[in-house]
């Protein structure tokens, strides 16, 4: 298939529904609530992919990387396990518990491994544990046909399949997991039958992204990421989001707010109205990170350890609603999705185009929540045109 420099005709595009919930105090709940929310958004998907990400589900192994891997064939299983066994210390390997579901057909072999990088190799390669694991994940996904690592973070996990999201939740027995962040996705791909690895969320280390939209700038975002060693193998736009977050936040050390400004950059017109030092910063961001500007319609919710973020594209071409209730933050494609999780929220609002909503563990202040918008930020948000 890959006899030329580019993949030929292999990318799926899709629309979708998404939901997220986070306890800002770290309170953990099981997967039934988020299942209800994404079930309400049934009409936004077409049964060709559903998935969840959950944070805080493996507290007893919080230092270990949890690799969730799907194998389409015994040979893929063998080849990938060779890579895993060779480079990583495996503390536990087991099948991911599932329950038969008449709507989830033909599941691949689903395994999970709790691993740590070999200390000696880390030392020799002078690499961080994250980079080391990332490299192995990339290698398996790019080089072993039929094997896909679909989750690789610590104390978190992704669960996804071809089917409606509510069936996926039942299939993976999500009521048995307790998490303080739940993110869910129901998929509406517009071509090709669903593909297990192509369902959302997309993850990389402890990043998980769910996405509604089509990235019109996919071509350059992919090439930009390739310059930094990322290989886009999942045949979908959304993995680009996951890799961009990893590059900007983990590798380049940018604050989450700034990474959001890169991916949904303010317009030059708005930048010109900012005070001198902010203008300098935003001009530099756009000069340096033009290849990371994500253009086209999107609403995404992404999580990492201790953080959940929702953001729209720069002119809000896809819906996203946010809500607060006590110490909980909710995000969803539609208000109905929020009311399914929380019938009586304290506050419901529609985030403005390009302005992120950020919830952080241990902080009651949600960035982007209307009360917390200062005067300058309000002007900034207004200048975006509101969507």
């Amino acid at each position, binding site marked *: 298939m890959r006899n*030329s*420099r*580019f993949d*030929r*005709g292999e*990318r*799926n*595009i*899709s*629309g979708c529904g998404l939901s997220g919930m986070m306890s800002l105090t770290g309170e953990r709940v099981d997967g039934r609530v988020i299942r209800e929310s994404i079930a309400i958004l049934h009409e936004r998907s077409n049964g060709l992919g559903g998935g969840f990400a959950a944070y805080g589900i493996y507290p007893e192994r919080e230092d270990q990387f949890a690799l969730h891997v799907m194998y389409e064939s015994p040979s893929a299983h063998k080849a990938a396990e060779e890579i895993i066994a060779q480079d990583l210390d495996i503390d536990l390997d087991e099948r991911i518990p599932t329950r038969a579901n008449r709507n989830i057909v033909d599941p691949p072999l689903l395994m999970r491994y709790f691993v740590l990088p070999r200390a000696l190799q880390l030392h020799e390669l002078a690499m961080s544990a994250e980079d080391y694991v990332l490299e192995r994940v990339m290698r398996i996904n790019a080089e072993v046909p039929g094997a896909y690592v679909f989750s690789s973070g610590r104390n978190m996990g992704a669960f996804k399949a071809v089917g409606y999201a509510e069936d996926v939740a039942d299939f993976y027995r999500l009521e048995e997991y307790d998490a303080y962040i739940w993110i869910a996705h129901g998929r509406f791909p*517009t*071509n090709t039958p669903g593909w297990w690895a192509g369902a959302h969320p997309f993850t990389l280390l402890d990043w998980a992204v769910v996405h509604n*939209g*089509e*990235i*019109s*700038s*996919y*071509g*350059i975002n*992919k*090439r*930009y990421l*390739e*310059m*930094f060693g990322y290989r886009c193998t999942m045949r979908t736009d959304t993995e680009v989001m996951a890799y961009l977050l990893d590059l900007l936040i983990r*590798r*380049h*050390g*940018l*604050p989450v*707010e*700034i990474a959001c400004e890169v991916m949904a*950059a303010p*317009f*030059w*017109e708005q930048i010109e109205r900012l005070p001198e*030092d*902010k203008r*300098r*910063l935003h*001009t*530099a*961001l*756009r*000069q*340096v*990170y*033009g*290849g990371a*500007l994500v*253009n*086209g*319609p999107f609403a995404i919710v992404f999580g990492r350890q201790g953080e959940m973020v929702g953001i729209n594209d*720069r*002119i809000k*071409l896809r819906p996203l609603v946010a809500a607060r209730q006590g110490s909980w933050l909710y995000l969803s494609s539609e208000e109905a999705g929020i009311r399914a999780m929380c019938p009586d929220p304290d506050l419901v609002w529609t985030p403005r185009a390009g302005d992120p909503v950020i919830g952080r563990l241990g902080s009651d202040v949600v960035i982007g929540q209307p009360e917390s918008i200062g005067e300058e930020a309000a002007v900034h948000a207004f200048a975006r*045109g509101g969507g």
Partner: protein
Amino acid sequence: MSSTTTRRDPNAKPEAGTAKPNRQARAPIYRPPDFLWKRDADRCALCKRCVQQCGFDAITWENGPVVDPAKCVGCHRCEAFCPQKAITVEPNPQCLRPHPLWTEAHRKNLWTQAETGGVLLSGMGNDLSYPILWDHLLLDACQVTNPSIDPLREPMELRTYLGRKPDQIEVEMTDDGPALVGEMAPSLELEVPIVFAAMSYGSISLNAQKAIAMAAEELGTYWNTGEGGLHEDLKPYAHRAVVQCASGRFGVTADYLNAGAAIEIKIGQGAKPGIGGHLPGEKVSAQVSETRMIPAGSDALSPAPQHDIYSIEDLRQLIFALKEASNYVKPVSVKIAAVHNVGAIASGIVRAGADIVYLDGFRGGTGAAPTVIRDHLGIPIEIAIAVVDEQLRQEGIRNQASLIAAGGIRSSADAAKAIALGADAVALGTGALLALGCTLCQRCYTGRCSWGITTQDPALTRRLDPYLGSRRVANLVRAWAAELKEILGAMGVNAVESLRGSRERLRALGLDTTTMDILGVKPAGMGA
């Protein structure tokens, strides 16, 4: 069309018969004229305007206009200015017996050389019918799954920065929120991803250069002095100029280097890769002589290589010598012709410290070049952009320099395709001259341009009003900018950086697999 003028090799022996003319040697070779000049005698008012307008002395007056067809270059000046619309200039339909190998152009060139023993000269760009890859590339548009954006109702951004950029930036959190750590390298800020190509004072008239400089200022983009120095009258536009330092070093002084917005080292030019410049003495007027700092009337021959650059490490020294001379506040561009190994060369240039690489394809224009060089050396700009952009990305140094693509950009569509292939901006040379009224007669090297563009004859240069000229050039670029916004909107993106290098939005029609691979473009019909 072939050239009729030649440059003699100064070392060549005089042709037989020059010293001792004899009848045999003077017998003419029959060379049919390229154009026929026709006059409707019923309409002609015998006003003599055609005689006055012809810059090439092809029309004389003997109780009415009389034309020497051999001198007519087909510039259509007389036709345009005939108040009675009595004149038509047409290609000469009379043909020699056709031959697929020995085309008329080949035969005419050969005859000219048989008569003169010289190197054939040409102006403007390569006029042979090589495949034009622009015309085999198609742009994408949105339908349903991703919405298009209406540029008349939503912001649509073309602003572009040319120069070195770091791979990442450092941000620190302060009480005031996030702040940038450190300074960005100097760069050029363009309101449109279009700059003007280098065209020297000398090769074009001062009025022509002024028209382009004024347009650049108005448009928020940059013009380029070429290797002819900076004329006193253009100093008010110097802040919008890229000042060129070429192998002849004409007009290069410390003041000159510091006057512009950026400095460009010219290694090569698409129309004449591997050879230097040639400004015929006829075009070296008193003012040109002053600006270039050379004697009036002397041929301005810039050497083929820069005599202080015989290697990539020498280039690095010159780049940093110029940065030193300008106190590191101006980006330095290096202009090269697109040649076969352009990817590796461009990589070397970036690693040598250039902030901008200017790629000039083999269809790029020139004021004067040997026809054989113009028509047969180099590669198309489409290929060069793709190869250079890909190589710099593979080496992880794409951020370190911007790419300007030039050499045959005919429309906003070409510009959009160039940007999608990976160019940061495109440069307009021929396009700007066409906007000034040029009809592409390709006789720039004669210095007799009837339109006042590529001449230094005051009687001809005054035909070009720099202010009106600047209106047309600015209109052209504004029109292209509006079209680029339409294209971006149809593609569903609202910033040019989302098109830049996004080859996924291009499809090839009728290209072979290897070419598609080099361009990094899929065939039409293949989806995402």
